[in-house]
């Protein structure tokens, strides 16, 4: 029998690799919308249905709405507004990035294996996906120059944190902790707002943080 949760996890991994290799901003935003929906569905299929509380289901809907619709919608607006199509000259190239993504999967498999002692069995795959997503997000954040791509990297990192929380949250469903990760989306929203409203576009010809390089020692 195919586990739906495993399918979702592999879809997440796929979206991570796709986002590392893509240079079209519009494509990136679409991938992030897809990843957001998949990631927020995972806890629903991991938890046993009768364990889901009403609050849990409510939070699930909020998660799908913010991660899948609200934030990507915002980003869609931002990309349209600043009229840039491609991420040019990343600090590390696309092929190298995808390769790095593959290495992340290996390393996370290793880490998840080491954590094996203290994790329930079915969560190992989840842990691998989570750490990969987190690492790839940080990687994207550090190796891309455009402000919007950095925000996308941050969003991906946040998805990874949400997944780690889900993996660890087996017994925490009595206390809402993981769900507060949704507040990080607030920060993402603010950053995108910053790009749209706060003249990053006006102050520069391009939303390129490479131009944000005046302040240094």
């Amino acid at each position, binding site marked *: 029998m195919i586990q739906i949760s495993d399918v979702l996890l592999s879809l997440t991994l796929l979206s991570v690799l796709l986002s590392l290799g893509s240079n079209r901003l519009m494509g990136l935003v679409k991938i992030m919308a897809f990843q957001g929906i998949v990631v927020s569905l995972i806890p629903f299929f991991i938890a046993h249905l009768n364990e889901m509380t009403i609050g849990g289901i409510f939070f699930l809907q909020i998660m799908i709405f913010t991660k899948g619709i609200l934030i990507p919608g915002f980003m869609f607006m931002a990309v349209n507004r600043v009229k840039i199509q491609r991420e040019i000259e990343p600090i590390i190239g696309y092929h190298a990035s995808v390769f790095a993504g593959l290495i992340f999967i290996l390393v996370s498999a290793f880490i998840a294996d080491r954590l094996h002692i203290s994790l329930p069995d079915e969560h190992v795959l989840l842990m691998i996906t989570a750490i990969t997503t987190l690492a790839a997000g940080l990687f994207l954040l550090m190796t891309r120059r455009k402000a919007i791509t950095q925000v996308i990297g941050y969003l991906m990192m946040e998805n990874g944190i949400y997944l780690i929380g889900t993996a660890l949250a087996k017994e925490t469903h009595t206390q809402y902790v993981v769900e507060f990760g949704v507040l990080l989306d607030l*920060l993402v929203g603010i*950053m995108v707002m910053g790009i749209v409203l706060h003249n990053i576009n006006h102050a520069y010809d391009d939303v390129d943080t490479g131009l944000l390089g005046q302040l240094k020692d």
Partner: protein
Amino acid sequence: MLEFICLIPIFTGIFAMYLPVRMGRMILILTAFFHLQFVVLGWLGKIKPGLPDYFAATPEGLLILLVTSFIFLLISIYAVSYMRESEIQSEPIYIGCTLFFLASMSMVALADHLIVLWIAVEATTLVSAPLIFLHRSKAALEATWKYVLICSVGIALALLGCFFIVMSMNIGSTHIPLTFSSLTAAAAKLDPVWLKAGFIFTVIGYGTKMGLAPMHTWLPDAHSEAPSPASALLSGALLNCAFLGVYRTHKILYASGLGDYSSNLLIGFGLVSMFVAAIFIYNQSGYKRMLAYSSIENMGIIAFGVGIGGLATYGAMLHLIHHSLIKSSLFLSAGNILLGYGSKLANKTGNMAKMLPKTFTAFFAGFVGISGFPPFGIFVSELLIIMGAFQQGRYISISVFIFALIFIFAGASRLVMNMSFGKCDSEILVDENLARVLPSYTLLLTSIILCIWLPDSIYQTIIDVISTIGGSVNG
């Protein structure tokens, strides 16, 4: 209702955003004044928390809350005069956001729940970002972008740290509320491996906000580009609040017998911060950036002192108080200098002793204080930390510590001497006035007074704070 301390600034802040600027200024000072009143009432134990599951009046929280509230009052008196001179169009935003900022920092100080603390720290980032962007220049935009992005990553990692701490609780199969006080009480039952992992992520997360190297990169930019009253608040109040997050987690680790591990991490981060600050101060050309790096250094000293334990923790707590007082005074003087000369570069300023004598007195006295000379409190606190480290036999760390202090003094004094007595051809754009020097004098004077006479209740509170992490005044 202890929560009023957080709620009052929120409400007045919303009003101030929509009222005319003149009334907004009144509201700012009045709120600061009433906030201080409430904090003193809370300090005396007259008001109890309404939601004891989430908020508590812990000694460390009260200590930092009192410092924050006190410097906020003086900074807002200064800010009113500063804003009038620098003609910022978006002044209502400044007033509203500083009030929200005060509210979120009070929430950090009073929070007892892991997640409430985390939310409050996130809120400080959100509401202080507009303060940094106030001048709307290219450089301000860059500083704000760095600040929001880097601090957001830090906050995300701190959340991960919270997950790990919850995990350690689950594995130890303890079912207690997720508050710092109950976690500390039940620390022995927590799983040590996950707790250690949680501490690492918490230190990296909140340490980013606190300005510990190597996560400090946002700090010099944000502090130098923000308008001076906001820089004073960031340096004097926000960094302490972020330190609270680190400190409270350290307390849990100490209670569960992992004190050595977390202490060594704190000592490491502290020394690296001091070292980085020393390198960057030595060849610094901007005086506000110099002050910002000095904040990194002082946060390093506090982390170092807490890590060493024993007598040094007492020194670290004193250092925290005096650093806030002196550094915010220095930033306020820097604001006067910026208004006077119109430049943040030290070589565009000069002969301050003649041209801005009142500001010069405050700035130079502040410099003497921050470098650790008597009669200011940092002299005592640094001496106590050094003595504490010798008692613990940490000779290598203490030699790095002393070396960094000397190096920083050498770099900073060159800059300050040039600014004070060097040549300058330019004219003063905006003259100094009493409203903009009195707050600095008051802050410095408070530091001297606290050095000579520490009120018993403050002394007792510091003892309560440090006794939970194994500190004592007797070594």
